[in-house]
C-alpha cells in the first residue's frame, strides 16, 4: 500500500453519532497514523522508508524529507541488526520488541525496541509496518544497575573472606573466589544448597548435615546466626575450622528473598590457641616440677637438721609448700585454664596433709561439684593446710587417732569452707604471728575478701567464708 492509498480512507469520524460503534471504514486512519504517540514507519522491500509519523520523526530529530525516502539501514547504528530484521520480516516472521540502536540527527544513539510485521500480497512482500519504542532511559537504568552489580561483584571478589549467597530455598546463587578456594571446590550455582563446602562437622566432631548448618537455620528461622564454630572438609580430605555469619536478606516488603553468608577461616586462631595452650601447659609443668623440687629440698633439710626448732620450722614450711605443690597440679587444666575442680583440689591438698599426718588421722571430704578460679587456689591451699595441721595438732590434741572433716559448700554467692575435728576442741591462743597458724588463715581469708571464725562444738569447727570468684 502506498501512502496515497492510506490517505484515501474516508474521514467520517466527526459525522458519527455519539456512543455508536463505527465501521472500520469510518475511522480516520491517516489522522491516527500521523498523531499517535507511538513512533511508526513503513519500509519497502528495498529498505526504503516509505513513510514515518510525527512521533518517529520527533524521536530521531529528522524532518520528513531527511528521513522518508532514505534507506532504513542508514539510521541503524548496527548494520547487521537491520539486515537481520529485514530478512526475518521478508521471511514472514514477526518481530516482537526487537532491540536496536538508531542514530539521531544530533549524532546521539537511541536504544529502541522494534515491533514489526511484513505486509504480503499474493505471497509477495510489499512493506514492513514497524512500531518503534524508545527504551533509552530503560537501557540507561539497566546500565547503572549493571555497573553497580559489577562494582559489587568486584568488591565481593576482592574480599579476603569467603562470601556466598542463596535464594530463599537455600540454593547457591553466588559465591566469590575466596569461597571456592576455602571450600576446595567449585560450587554448582542453582544446585548446591545451604553451603559451598563439601562436608561439615560440628565443633565437637559430629557430622553436620548441610540442611542443619547455620545458613540453613538462618533461612529456616529467618534470623542471623552468630557464634557457631564448625569444621568443614574439602574434597581432598583436609579440614579447617571456620566461623559462619549467615544473614537473611529481605525485599522491600520484608519478604525473605535469600541469605548471605561470610565464612571466616579461623585455622590460624585455633593454631595460636593450641600453641598458647601448649606453652601454658609447659610453663605449668615446669612450675609444678620446681615446686616439687622445692618441697624435696625442704624435706631433706628437715631430715638433716639437728635442731628440734629448725626441724619443726622446716616441717611446717615443707608442709605448706607441699600443699601449694598439690594445688598447682590442678591449675591451668586443659578443660578450663582459668578454673579448677573443687573436689579434685581438696583431695589433692588433703592428700598432701595425709602424708604428713600418717594413717591414724582420717580426713573425710564433702564438697559440692563445681569450679573455682585459679586466683584463689594458693591462698585456699595454704588455708586448708593450716586448718588441717591445726586440727591434727590441737583439735585431736595428741590423741594420735581421729577424724577431720573438710567440707566446701556454696550458699548465696558465698563459698564456705569448714574444717572440723572430733577432738575436745581447743582454746585459740593469739600468738601474734601472722605468717603461720590461724594468723595466716585470717590474713589469707582477708585476701580472699572473706572472714574466718572458729566455733566450738563437739570438736573445733573452723569456717572460712568468702565471695565466690568468677572463673
Amino acid at each position: 500500500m502506498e501512502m496515497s492509498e492510506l490517505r484515501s480512507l474516508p474521514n467520517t469520524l466527526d459525522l458519527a453519532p455519539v456512543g455508536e460503534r463505527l465501521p472500520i471504514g469510518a475511522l480516520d486512519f491517516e489522522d491516527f497514523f500521523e498523531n499517535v504517540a507511538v513512533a511508526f514507519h513503513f519500509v519497502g522491500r528495498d529498505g526504503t522508508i516509505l513513510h514515518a509519523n510525527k512521533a518517529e520523526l520527533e524521536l530521531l530529530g529528522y524532518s520528513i524529507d531527511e528521513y522518508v525516502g532514505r534507506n532504513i539501514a542508514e539510521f541503524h547504528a548496527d548494520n547487521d541488526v537491520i539486515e537481520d530484521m529485514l530478512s526475518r520480516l521478508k521471511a514472514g516472521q514477526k518481530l516482537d520488541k526487537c532491540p536496536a540502536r538508531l542514530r539521531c540527527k544530533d549524532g546521539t544513539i537511541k536504544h529502541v525496541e522494534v515491533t514489526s510485521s511484513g505486509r504480503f500480497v499474493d505471497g509477495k512482500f510489499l512493506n514492513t509496518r514497524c512500531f518503534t519504542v524508545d527504551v533509552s532511559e530503560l537501557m540507561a537504568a539497566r546500565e547503572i544497575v549493571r555497573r553497580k552489580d559489577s562494582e559489587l561483584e568486584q568488591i565481593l571478589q576482592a574480599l579476603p573472606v569467603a562470601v556466598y549467597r542463596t535464594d530463599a530455598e537455600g540454593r547457591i546463587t553466588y559465591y566469590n573466589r575466596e569461597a571456592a578456594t576455602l571450600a576446595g571446590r567449585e560450587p554448582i550455582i542453582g544446585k548446591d544448597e545451604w553451603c559451598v563446602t563439601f562436608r561439615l562437622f560440628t565443633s565437637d566432631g559430629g557430622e553436620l548435615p548441610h540442611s542443619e548448618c547455620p545458613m540453613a537455620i538462618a533461612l529456616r528461622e529467618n534470623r542471623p546466626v552468630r557464634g557457631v564454630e564448625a569444621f568443614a572438609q574439602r574434597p581432598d580430605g583436609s579440614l579447617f575450622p571456620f566461623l559462619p555469619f549467615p544473614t537473611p536478606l529481605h525485599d522491600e516488603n520484608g519478604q525473605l528473598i535469600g541469605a548471605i553468608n561470610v565464612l571466616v577461616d579461623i585455622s590460624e586462631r585455633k593454631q595460636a590457641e593450641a600453641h598458647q595452650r601448649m606453652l601454658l601447659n609447659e610453663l605449668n609443668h615446669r612450675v609444678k616440677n620446681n615446686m616439687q623440687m622445692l618441697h624435696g629440698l625442704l624435706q631433706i633439710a628437715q631430715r638433716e637438721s639437728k635442731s628440734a626448732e629448725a626441724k619443726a620450722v622446716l616441717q611446717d614450711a615443707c608442709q605448706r609448700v607441699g600443699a601449694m605443690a598439690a594445688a598447682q597440679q590442678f591449675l591451668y587444666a586443659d578443660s578450663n585454664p582459668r578454673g579448677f575442680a573443687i573436689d579434685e583440689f581438696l583431695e589433692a591438698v588433703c592428700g598432701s596433709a595425709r602424708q604428713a599426718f600418717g594413717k591414724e588421722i582420717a580426713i573425710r571430704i564433702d564438697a559440692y561439684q563445681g569450679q573455682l578460679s585459679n586466683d584463689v587456689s594458693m591462698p585456699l591451699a595454704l588455708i586448708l593446710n593450716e586448718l588441717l595441721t591445726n586440727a591434727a595438732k590441737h583439735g585431736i590434741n595428741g590423741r594420735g587417732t581421729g577424724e577431720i572433716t573438710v567440707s566446701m559448700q556454696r550458699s548465696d554467692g558465698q563459698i564456705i569452707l569448714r574444717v572440723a575435728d572430733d577432738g575436745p576442741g581447743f582454746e585459740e591462743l593469739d600468738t601474734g604471728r601472722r605468717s603461720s597458724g590461724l594468723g595466716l588463715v585470717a590474713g589469707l581469708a582477708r585476701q580472699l575478701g572473706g572472714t574466718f571464725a572458729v566455733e566450738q562444738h563437739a570438736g573445733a569447727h573452723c569456717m572460712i567464708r568468702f565471695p565466690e570468684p568468677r572463673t
Partner: protein
Amino acid sequence: MIHLTSGPDEPLEPSSHPVYGAPVKTPQPIRVLAVEDDYLVGLNLEQQLLDAGYEVVGIAASADEALRMATQGKPQLAIMDIRLAGTRDGVDAAIELMTKLGIPSIFATAHGDEKTRRRAAAAKPLGWLQKPYSSALLVAAIKTALTKTS
C-alpha cells in the same frame, strides 16, 4: 564464736617490731605505705621495711584502701604493686596518691612493661623495683627516692 577478722575492709595495722638502725638520720623514722594485695608478699614487705628502720603506716590491698590509709597515716612515700584487689590498679592508686595527697610512689611489680610505665608516668614515680627484689634493693630504691624528694 571467736572472730579473728571482721571483714575485707578492715586494714591491717603495722606490727610493732623493733627498729634496726634507721638508714636516714632523722629524728622520726620515714613513714612508708605498703600497697600489695597478696597477703604473704605484703607481710614480707612490711617486715623488710621494719627491719630497715622505716615505719609502716599500713598494708593496703586495694586502691581505695591505699588512699584511706595514706590520708590517715600521712606516709612520705608508698611502695606500690601494680596488680591490686578491686577494679582499680596500682597505677590508678599512685596517680591518686600523688594528685590528691602529694605522696610519691615506688612501683614494685612484675608488670614492668613499657605500656604500664607510660601510664604510670602521671604518678611521677620515684623508682621501679622488679619483683622479686631483695631487702637491699628495696632500701636502695627508697634512699634514692628520698634523695629526689629532698
